[in-house]
């Protein structure tokens, strides 16, 4: 009997709508848009800073506009999602052995969350206190 294998078409632009785990993945990937735009804002801010007080104050005033605030609130939410999804997979990317067994994944995740909290506090602390 002759063979005639059937190849099912793959919906190239809508495959991720078929399952929640793919939707979660796409949301994780889309966080990069916000992070990318924010780095652009940061580098634009540095450019303004290099041009003197007037430019810089104008830049800071722009950050107070409603549009900028809405963007940053969204960016903040997506940045949190990026951090959580990034640290949650660290035991898979970097499993660690101690003695005859693996260090528990939840411990590896907790250490990363602790580092995240520490770095955040250091940055926050230096903005508020240092030089104030």
């Amino acid at each position: 009997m002759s063979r005639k294998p059937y190849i099912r078409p793959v919906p190239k632009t809508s495959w991720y709508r078929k399952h929640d785990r793919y939707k979660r993945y796409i949301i994780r990937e889309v966080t990069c848009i916000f992070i990318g735009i924010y780095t652009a804002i940061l580098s634009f801010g540095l450019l303004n800073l290099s041009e003197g007080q007037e430019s810089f104050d104008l830049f800071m005033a722009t950050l107070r506009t409603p549009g900028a605030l809405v963007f940053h609130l969204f960016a903040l939410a997506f940045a949190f999602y990026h951090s959580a999804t990034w640290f949650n997979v660290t035991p898979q990317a970097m499993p660690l052995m101690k003695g005859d067994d693996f260090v528990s994944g939840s411990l590896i995740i907790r250490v990363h969350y602790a580092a995240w909290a520490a770095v955040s506090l250091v940055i926050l602390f230096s903005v508020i206190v240092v030089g104030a």
Partner: protein
Amino acid sequence: MSEVRTITMEVLRYRPERDSDPVLQSYRVPCPQEWVVLDALDYIKNNIDSSLSYRWSCHMAVCGSCGMMVNGEPMLACKTFLREMGDTVRVEPLLNFPIERDLVVVIDDFLEKLKSLKPYIIRKTEKPVEEGTYLQTKAQLKRFKQYTLCINCLLCYAACPQYALNTDFIGPSALALAHRYNLDSRDEGYAMRQEMVASHEGVWECSFVGACSEVCPKHVDPASAVQQMKITSTKDYFLRLLGGKR
């Protein structure tokens, strides 16, 4: 007597000699509490329609033959209880593979890829038999043990969107098995496997969706293996740029 419930099994049929496209066919199956999807398929084949084709062997999640889509999720038919499902259960052949007939898929592509990764212990020189066996510590065994649990059921390939979009990708379980031998203290084949692993079709096609690990019935965690290999491949690459050797 256990309770018997009649459910509708919707099975995707494809008979190459008469169908141009696969079609869904429904069967009414009276199933007791303890039945798994595979039992219902056996019931259909033995009592309703002997022409139904599907693969199975061990009925205990060891052989890896009965992987199929159950209500859209890649599952082992022998490990999926019908009592946990509704009154209609849809069964389709594993996604991302060509359909040979009904629930049987063509897995030649996977077998070729697996072979190319040399999933066996490679030694530069074999130790003479009289010198005894290769000994391993508990830790050395633990390092790769989880990857030995793979039964090649291919659920991970059916779940992987990158394999779906590009079947040139070597894919989850074959890479996980390469990693299994790379991690083995008795093995010396890392460099040989790396030719495939670090190629375009190797680990770099993976975007760490993680679906492979979520559907794996043996908790092998292929996504973990692939990410670890990305890290080692990256270290290798930069070491080679610096003129060093691994």
